[in-house]
């Protein structure tokens, strides 16, 4: 039986600021809900290819599994991506969670 395909998004860190960013249709956003989704293995390769076209803007680009919320937007599937999204749990005020984003 074929393994179930998990939806993916492309993420990386902003070259200048180091911030966590997500790829969204030709641009990079700090809002995970705007992340573009790959819903098939073909779309996955295409997404990574397009997200890798910004070597002087975003570094360390990779694909990661996501779950979808009720509105079909990306939410992290793994706790590592939760921390990347929210910031350090010991100092939430310094992460994005503390900045209302």
């Amino acid at each position, binding site marked *: 039986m074929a393994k179930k395909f998990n939806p993916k998004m492309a993420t990386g860190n902003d070259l200048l600021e180091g911030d966590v960013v997500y790829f969204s249709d030709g641009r990079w956003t700090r809002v995970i809900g705007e992340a573009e989704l790959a819903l098939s293995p073909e779309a996955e390769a295409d997404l990574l290819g397009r997200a890798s076209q910004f*070597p002087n803007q975003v570094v360390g680009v990779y694909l990661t599994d996501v779950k979808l919320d009720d509105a079909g937007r990306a939410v992290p599937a793994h*706790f590592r991506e939760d*921390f*990347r999204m929210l910031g350090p749990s*010991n100092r939430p005020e310094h992460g994005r969670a503390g900045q209302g984003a």
Partner: protein
Amino acid sequence: MYMYDDFDAAFVRGRVAEFRDQVARRLDGTLSEAEFLPIRLKNGLYLQLHAYMLRIAVPYGTLDSRKMRQLAYIADRWDKGYGHFTTRTNIQFNWPKLKDVPDILDALADVDMHAIQTSGNCIRNVTADHFAGAAADEIEDPRPTAELLRQWSTDHPEFAWLGRKFKIAVIASEHDRAVLKSHDIGVRIVRGVADEPGYEIFVGGGLGRTPMVAKQIRSFLPKAHLLPYLESILQVYNLQGRRDNKYKARIKILVHETGIDRFRELVETRFQEKLPQFNGVNQKILRRIEGSFVPPAFEAAQPMPPVLGAGLQSWIDTNVAAHRLDHYGIVTVSLKGIGETPGDASSDQMRLLADLAEEYAHDELRVSHEQNIVLPHVPRRHLPAIYDRLKAAGLATANIGLISDIIACPGMDYCALATARSIPVAQQIAERFHELGLEHEIGPMKIKISGCINACGHHHVGHIGILGLDRAGVENYQITLGGDGTETTVIGERAGPGFSYDEIVPAIERIVSAYLDVRTDPEETFIECFRRVGMTPFKEALYPPEEARSNAA
């Protein structure tokens, strides 16, 4: 305090200018990320989960008020108002912007500091006993030797691309406060049969995924032979160490696979060839360095105030160690406030520590590998004033060596390599035992927590070690017991299956309850008790049979 000479100052400024140019070329796209990555790492700049991280070297953990104030300034101007002191006695800033890093490095150079070789496969920051120069049991101050090694290893062309990172520590007493035997090379200052100065050399220690206790390679090395001998070790490692697998590339693997006797032969053969090439210049340099580490002008004995408050007395009993002079003390300021992040200090706290060092303590500060700050030379008559000011700043926690004085790496709250969080586990353990009021009842206890197998949190040598892993997408914590990071170094033994994030603090509580039950009397410490009774009672406490579990529920 060692002050940069013209050569040091020009070298560090040159590196800052070079890095400024490299950053500019990265930002305009001339340098690719693949080209820039090894360059930024050589200058201490990492990319972590949420931001860049700059790791700044604090050689042998020694700071003065000028350096500490500059760190506070950097925290306020370019970061988020705090820094994190590490188990390698460095400081890390968690939020610098790439374009600001050259300015930060210039600000460091203003106070004789840098971030060179705090990353990469090179010889890293040389550490020393954090009580150096103050401890009652030391033969001599180990820091001149550490400074000699720092100068020798900085930008040493032959050792710029080792198979893996390389860590050296120096101590000068029987009692090891610097985790010497967990280093690639451990140097212990000793005296020979005719009381001549020299070194005992250990090699091949390390933590990480394959923990090893360093082995003695030389029981006595004459003082003048240190650099040729260490170069011989490094050359054997550089030529014969593995480069095909990064997990087998540390010198500990080479020493283990070669066997210490054969490895010693290889080193000694190389040493005989190398010794004549050294003409003694380094010993002249060492004597000049020793001139920078003269003891402070200690004051004459003066009386302590006759009556001390209970809080002050408890803090003195717990946080102040014997100095080589009776009327002085060595103060360890805990960066482990209950519920705080181990090793973090705010810029205000850094400035207070700088003020206290300058006003009361001969202007010296140390960073300990246990992530606390030490005032090594404090006249005891000043302890009440120091305590009051620490207390007002939330820095008077009386817990040094107790269960809440926990080493914790940054873990998945910051680190890109982490597999689980460390900091909140440390915070919750400290809060739980504080709430129970059991810290002093439990007595000496070292809990050390790492958020991945690389073991920055030294979990292998914790009396209780905790290792955070990712098990099928969930944080899971393995417990080791009986580890020891002193002169009797032992790698802790794994207790059994791991615990979830929610289960780990109750699991630690069960270990501690078992200890309180089985110890012979309150004088028997946890580690002594573990050595006497072994793993069994702790295993039973950690993994009760099903029936006992359901009855307890």
